[in-house]
């Protein structure tokens, strides 16, 4: 991520970081992202916990809306942790975050369209085909 020498303001006070230094500028490029290893170990631990939780949802055979909401909750939390910390999105400039994160959110519109479409297909199949099978 060859950001120009921009100093990014970080929300967490404990993580005062300098932005990436431009590699092309020929400056000493030894710095980059410097976080304590502990941060990664903590996130790793949380990912394990969340995965275990989502597995237990299946193991105990929860059903219905409780199951679906729990699965989605754990999924979004895990995805958020991976993107924010492991992929360093939390420390990237805001423009990149919007450019990368916004388009996939718009996929939800596509999801909504296909939900209507498949409901319709299902209805047609029930009306016209289900009796013959």
């Amino acid at each position, binding site marked *: 991520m060859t950001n120009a020498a921009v100093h990014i303001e970080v929300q967490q006070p404990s993580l005062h970081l300098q932005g990436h230094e431009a590699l092309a500028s020929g400056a000493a490029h030894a710095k*980059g*992202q410097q976080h304590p290893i502990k941060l*990664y170990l903590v996130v790793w631990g949380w990912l394990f916990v969340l995965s275990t939780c989502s*597995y237990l949802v*299946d193991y105990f055979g929860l059903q219905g809306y409780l199951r679906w909401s729990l699965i989605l909750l754990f999924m979004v939390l895990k995805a958020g942790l991976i993107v924010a910390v492991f992929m360093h999105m939390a420390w990237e400039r805001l423009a990149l975050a919007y450019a990368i994160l916004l388009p996939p959110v718009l996929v939800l519109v596509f999801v909504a369209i296909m939900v209507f479409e498949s409901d319709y297909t299902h209805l047609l199949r029930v009306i016209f085909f289900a009796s013959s099978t």
Partner: protein
Amino acid sequence: MMWIFLLSDTFIFSCFLLSYMTARMSTTVPWPNPSEVFALTIGDKEIPLILIAIMTFILISSSGTMAMAVNFGYRRDRVKTAALMLATAAFGATFVGMQAFEWTKLIMEGVRPWGNPWGAPQFGASFFMITGFHGTHVTIGVIFLIAIARKVWRGDFDLERRGFFTSRKGYYEIVEITGLYWHFVDLVWVFIFALFYLW
């Protein structure tokens, strides 16, 4: 550039998961219960989804080692970076191996892209398409990791050695770029695990 590629890859996997959703919602035949389909009998007990759970933990661990490799890369710790990248590659190869085992088991049980013994025929098509594409991504990632780990190990980025194909100098930043790709593969698995296996 890697972010742009990952964004386009996001759309590819979104379309796969969407087509899976559409197939599953519009079929009048019951969908096979993944909890039972992917159960393994260990000892005498049938444990639901256990292989998939182990695969999930392996992939998450590989993401953890990759994140630490990136960290040591920025600290220019050549040996630790290369070792952690190779550990990541080993986790990835284990994952692909377990996936091959899973495919073999399902094919032996009669799952085909056009049908299966338990219910909606679209199950096989969705399964092979989604996990196959993901497995391909993991395999490419393993190759990518080994190639970059070799360069780190050899000290290409300290000696500013020129690349074989590009004739340009490489920098430690490539470790982060490899990491981005690898975390993305893990990210996709998070969605597949939730939407295909658990739903």
